[in-house]
């Protein structure tokens, strides 16, 4: 699924990370840990195909089979959850989008507020919607950067449940104990 050799990323003179070797086979769960500023987010952006590495070889699955959730839920705040998910479902060319959207909104507890603007939502509700967006097209590879941020206990439990059902996951977190049981590969930044 992901193969990286000698991966490095620089922004100008600043080196973010270097010499990262990775083998993430299909069906595995890569847990990325490390302190703030160690390069976790940048690595995840590279592994999601959103940033090019400065050096090294990287093999990734096709762009549209990747789901990425960063520090922001990546949804339009002036649109409703239904409008947001409809837009992305169209762009992903999902055949039965109404059914899929309804199922995700129900599961993440957003069905009742599906016609309300996202700008009125709490951070936790927006994060739930971000998870709906990222799961919409059933991605083969899911890249999640601190996905537990802002989620309440119920939301976090829901995410735990969802993570157990997914195929290949790369996840960065400050709370490794939450997902330690799922991890099959580990990468710790110093």
């Amino acid at each position, binding site marked *: 699924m992901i193969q990286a050799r000698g991966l490095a990323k620089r922004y100008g003179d600043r080196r973010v990370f270097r010499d990262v070797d990775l083998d993430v086979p299909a069906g595995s769960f890569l847990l990325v840990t490390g302190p703030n500023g160690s390069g976790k987010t940048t690595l995840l952006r590279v592994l999601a195909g*959103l940033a*090019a590495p400065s050096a090294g070889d990287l093999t990734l699955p096709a762009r549209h089979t990747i789901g990425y959730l960063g520090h*922001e839920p990546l949804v339009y705040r*002036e649109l409703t959850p239904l409008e947001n998910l409809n837009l992305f479902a*169209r762009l992903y060319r999902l055949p039965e989008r109404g059914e899929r959207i309804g199922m995700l909104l129900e599961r993440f507890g957003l069905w009742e507020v599906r016609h309300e603007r996202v700008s009125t939502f709490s951070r936790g509700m927006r994060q739930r919607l971000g998870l709906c967006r990222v799961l919409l097209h059933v991605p083969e590879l899911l890249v999640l950067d601190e996905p537990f941020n802002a989620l309440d206990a119920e939301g976090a439990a829901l995410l735990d449940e969802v993570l157990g059902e997914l195929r290949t996951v790369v996840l960065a977190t400050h709370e490794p104990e939450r997902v330690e049981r799922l991890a099959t590969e580990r990468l710790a930044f110093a």
Partner: protein
Amino acid sequence: MNYVRDVGALTRKDLLLELRAKETLPSMLLFVIAALTIFHFALPAGAGDAAALGLLWSALIFTALLGLTRAFVAEREQGLFDALILTPCDRSAIWLGKALAVCAFLVCAEVVALPAFALFFHAVGGRTVAAVALADIGIATVGTLFGAMAVAGKARELLLPLLFLPAAVPIVVGGVGGYLWFLALYDGVFALLAWALFEYVVAEI
């Protein structure tokens, strides 16, 4: 067919965002009316029609710039380019969808600006209306490309005018002179360039 559907969905999204937020269009309308009012009082009595027409084009270009600075606000502030470029839609569809929305805002601003110009200065001829319509296409295509480039830059508020205003000089020349063929050529060349280059602009935003 998928390309057309993607462009349609993205344009609809931008129009809906403006309908909800009501930030860009009211600012453009207020700006163009204020600019024309100032020009009305600033232009010396007896100045020719050509001078007034030059002021109309100046007002339209700066109104467009105002709209373009807001074009990618949602994508920039909420990091939405990341979500959009991971979808299977062609990256140029993102540019075209945005350019169509920008074009729609420009047309709305001009629906108010041209009668206001006629009221303050002189009647607007069919040639000027045609020139303005052609200019809208050029402004939207080039401006949207530069708007996306500015999102990636550090001094984005500074970068967009610095990129857009020099590129808009031929539009003003064509518009004031009423050279419709020149404006059509500009539209064709720059639309093609922007369509081809947008992929590289959003490669690493």
